[in-house]
């Protein structure tokens, strides 16, 4: 009697992250740990001025220092700029525009020698007039940051839908608001780092933290004078990324240029202070919102104007309006929309992409504003949001087809589980009662792409999959693992198709020489896109195995299944043949030999936006709603977030450990944004470049988190899954802000809700009400 094997699925379980044992034992070597034979170290001499002409750079003394192998300046390098607008030369020739500007770089036998050499480089400057504020930079006569943009407008975007003027005329209420969201930065524990190695043919191997290895080749190659095809990008394990590595930044070409010059491998590592000053920030935005509604609370229009402080050069921060626009136009039913965004050059450091992209900023503004509108309409925060919530089947003004969403479910469940309405009414009534500690509860929700985002010609990912004679599968994916857990998700999806165990799957990734093309890790896309490609490849391999088994057993393919290393009868699980035995038979069959080796390239069914910003750019969308319950010390302004209820439409859970970790971690990052994190930039200089003065959430500060996953089962997603990683960071901050209002009657429109700011606002409100009293 053959054994009977029940059906098993790894999808939906708590799978151990594939690299966790190595990471927990110190075996993993990260990029920052990498040492190559004969490797040199490199450091960058940065500007001491925020805006100045460079009159003279003298590197003679640095070059003469023993142990220094090369010193380069703009004079030694091709003047080819990088970045979204190609406005950022890796080494600056005659002008610096920000405090982080790169003037020279040193390669030497040790980091200590590099530091000494940097001190020996003499730079003479002539200061130029400065501008740090968007509105000032738009004034006639303001200092011009880049001569080819005399108006200081780096990028501008506009979206118009319907007739805002007519909608306003037909509105019963119009609510206005201004929200300035601040500078924060990624705080990756692994500082920025790369290692460049050039061979005798001039081909470059770049060990990089990049999140977009394939497109990076095209972006960086021109600044190096190499063909993109002669560039191999390897991504060793990294200490966090969170969007910070979605562009080429000057240190990367500088490192390669030094390797080209010295013909030795070169490693360039930032100091922690340098990481705070010279890595990208989240894009700060000044929002002005006008939004209308009918007497019953039905939204009529949104009219939003934003200014983005672009800093001295243009990275992905300037493109965050593409995502902000989606939230403005498509989060809740808004029949008439006008949105305008301008990214303004200043002498500040510049922003890149950061988990949640422009949606963290947009959701702060929209969800704070929605709370204000609910009060004007005389509705509670839940009822007002439900009244305007999108429904499955909605097509938004930007053409997003919200086929399979459950915003109302998110809102209702979050409200029920948190006992929202009862607490909300009680805490509001408690504002006037005596007592120093006030309690409050607030809600926020958002919409995000959950099936990739087609911002390039393709949003695809490729997979190569092979099985060996022992029924071990190797999956070579274009997708990248940067700590988020894609490795494990791919192994789970493949194991389920092939009837193998997780330990039978080797996932090979993070190397452009082996992996097929992929866009990169962004837009919550990897599970959906790379996962779908891996699953489709596994299905092709499965079909080959089942075809052979069906032929041998003389049965139909549909009567067979793969389980726990065996081909089994699908109806009763009775084992027929071990998969490895079958694979060997297929392999060692003389001229009929069949090796199971398959490929797949998955292109999601999404569209590029047209020139009017209309297009169904993601293959899926989803929502999350968060409720925050807080206690506020009205004297110190300290906010203690006690409990968060998180409800998110995740399509389907693939790795339960992974999805919970993403949501808990995303909430911690979002709470930092809400409460404590702010990169203080004064007159172009970063004032708090250390973990002492830039406070990220610590373990004792974290609230209890109650998570609910709505498994709506996306028809296109792998095993029904949707992308999930950004929403938790996006949604939480306005929920906290709305809770503060519920507790105290104080609105802070400009995060973070730091204790001093909150205490002052509470005190000022008390002064006003005292004065207003007869």
């Amino acid at each position, binding site marked *: 009697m053959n054994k009977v094997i029940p059906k098993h699925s790894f999808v939906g379980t*708590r799978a*151990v*992250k594939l*690299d*966790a*044992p190595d*990471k*927990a*034992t*110190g*075996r*993993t*070597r*990260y990029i*920052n*740990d990498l040492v190559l034979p004969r490797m040199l170290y490199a450091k960058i001499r940065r500007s001491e001025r925020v805006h100045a002409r460079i009159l003279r750079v003298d590197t003679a003394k640095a070059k003469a220092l023993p142990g220094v192998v090369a010193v380069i300046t703009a004079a030694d390098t091709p003047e080819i700029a990088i970045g979204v607008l190609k406005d950022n030369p890796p080494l600056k020739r005659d002008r610096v525009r920000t405090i982080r500007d790169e003037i020279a770089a040193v390669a030497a036998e040790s980091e200590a020698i590099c530091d000494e050499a940097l001190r020996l480089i003499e730079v003479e400057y002539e200061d130029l007039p400065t501008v740090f504020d968007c509105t000032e930079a738009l004034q006639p006569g303001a200092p011009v940051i880049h001569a080819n943009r005399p108006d200081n407008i780096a990028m501008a975007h506009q979206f118009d839908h319907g007739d805002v003027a007519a909608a306003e005329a037909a509105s019963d209420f119009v609510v206005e608001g201004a929200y300035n969201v601040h500078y924060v930065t*990624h*705080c*990756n*524990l*692994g*500082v920025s780092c790369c290692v460049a190695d050039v061979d005798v043919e001039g081909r470059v191997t770049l060990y990089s933290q990049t999140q977009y290895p394939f497109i990076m080749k095209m972006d960086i190659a021109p600044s190096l004078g190499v063909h993109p095809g002669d560039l191999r990008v390897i991504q060793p*394990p*990294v*200490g*966090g*990324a*969170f969007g910070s590595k979605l562009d080429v930044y000057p240190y990367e070409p500088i490192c390669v240029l030094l390797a080209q010059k010295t013909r030795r491998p070169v490693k360039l590592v930032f*100091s*922690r202070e340098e990481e705070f000053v010279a890595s990208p920030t989240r894009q700060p935005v000044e929002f002005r919102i006008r939004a209308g509604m009918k007497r019953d609370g039905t939204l009529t229009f949104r009219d939003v104007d934003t200014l983005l402080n672009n800093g001295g050069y243009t990275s992905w921060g300037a493109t965050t309006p593409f995502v902000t626009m989606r939230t403005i136009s498509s989060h809740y039913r808004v029949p008439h929309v006008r949105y305008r965004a301008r990214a303004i050059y200043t002498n500040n450091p510049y922003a890149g992409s950061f988990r949640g992209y422009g949606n963290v900023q947009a959701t702060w503004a929209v969800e704070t504003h929605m709370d204000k509108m609910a009060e004007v309409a005389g509705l509670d925060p839940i009822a007002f949001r439900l009244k305007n919530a999108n429904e499955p089947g909605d097509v938004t003004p930007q053409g997003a087809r919200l086929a399979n969403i459950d915003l109302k479910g998110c809102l209702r469940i979050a409200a029920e589980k948190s006992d929202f309405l009862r607490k909300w009414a009680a805490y509001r009534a408690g504002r006037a009662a005596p007592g120093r500690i006030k309690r409050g509860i607030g809600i926020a929700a958002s919409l995000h792409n959950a099936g990739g985002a087609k911002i390039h010609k393709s949003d695809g990912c490729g997979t190569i999959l092979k099985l060996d004679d022992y029924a071990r599968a190797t999956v070579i994916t274009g997708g990248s693992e*940067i*700590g*988020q*857990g894609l490795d494990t998700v791919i192994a789970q999806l493949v194991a389920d198709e092939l009837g193998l165990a997780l330990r039978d799957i080797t996932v090979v990734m993070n190397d452009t020489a082996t992996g097929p093309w992929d866009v990169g890790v962004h837009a919550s896309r990897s599970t959906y896109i790379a996962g779908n490609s891996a699953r489709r490849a596994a299905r092709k391999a499965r079909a080959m195995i089942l075809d052979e088994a069906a032929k041998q057993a003389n049965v139909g393919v549909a009567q067979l299944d793969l389980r726990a290393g065996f081909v089994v009868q699908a109806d009763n699980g009775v084992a027929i043949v071990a998969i490895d035995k079958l694979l060997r038979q297929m392999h060692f069959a003389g001229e009929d030999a069949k090796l199971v080796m398959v490929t797949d390239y998955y292109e999601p069914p999404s569209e590029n936006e047209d020139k009017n910003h209309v297009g169904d750019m993601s293959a899926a969308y989803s929502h999350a709603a968060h409720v925050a319950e807080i206690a506020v010390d009205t004297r110190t302004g300290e906010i203690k977030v006690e409990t968060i209820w998180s409800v998110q439409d995740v399509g389907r859970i693939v*790795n339960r*450990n*992974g999805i*919970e*970790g993403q949501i*808990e*971690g*995303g*909430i*911690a*990052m979002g709470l930092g944004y809400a409460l404590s994190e702010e990169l203080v930039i004064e007159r172009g200089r970063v004032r708090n470049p*250390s*973990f*002492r003065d830039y406070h*990220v*959430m*610590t*373990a*004792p500060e*974290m609230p209890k*988190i109650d998570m609910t996953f709505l498994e709506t089962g996306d028809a296109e997603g792998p095993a029904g899954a949707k992308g999930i990683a950004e929403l938790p960071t996006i949604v939480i901050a306005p929920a906290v802000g709305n809770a503060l209002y519920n507790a105290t009657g104080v609105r802070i429109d400009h995060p973070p809700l730091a204790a001093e700011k909150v205490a002052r606002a509470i005190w000022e409100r008390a002064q006003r009400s005292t004065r207003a009293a007869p």
Partner: protein
Amino acid sequence: MSLEVEIAFTLNGRAVSAAVPATASALTVLRERFDLAGAKLVCGEGECGACTIIVDGLSRNSCLMPAVDLAGRTVRTVEGLWGERGLDPVQQAFVDTGAVQCGYCTAGMVMQIRHALDRNPAAGEAELRRAIEGNVCRCTGYAKVIEAALAAGQRMRGGGAP
């Protein structure tokens, strides 16, 4: 070149010695002389805990500790917790609960929690949260780290897997 000092100490159960620069940190020496790269240089000023090691039974920020102070001490690093009997209960719990994402803070977290549980295997959630107050994690939000710590404590007390 700076002055070198010969030191001898016990590292993960073995007697070792090295000539170390008088100004070098314990972290630098462990990473560069002994090739133990688990502990990380993240902030270099004792604000993040990623370099945590256990010295004579006390958790220390190895980035702030002069290497010469290792002389005569008993030092444990994350590499030394994985022995013939398999993973340490703290390491095993980190793996099982999903407390590892990018993993850059993990070595420091594991050592800090091991230290806390050595002092009090019955440590509760609040005590464990305080124990890792100085360990920054940017990925996990600490929830699974605390879950792992509680599970490890239970296992160390003989309670088996929770």
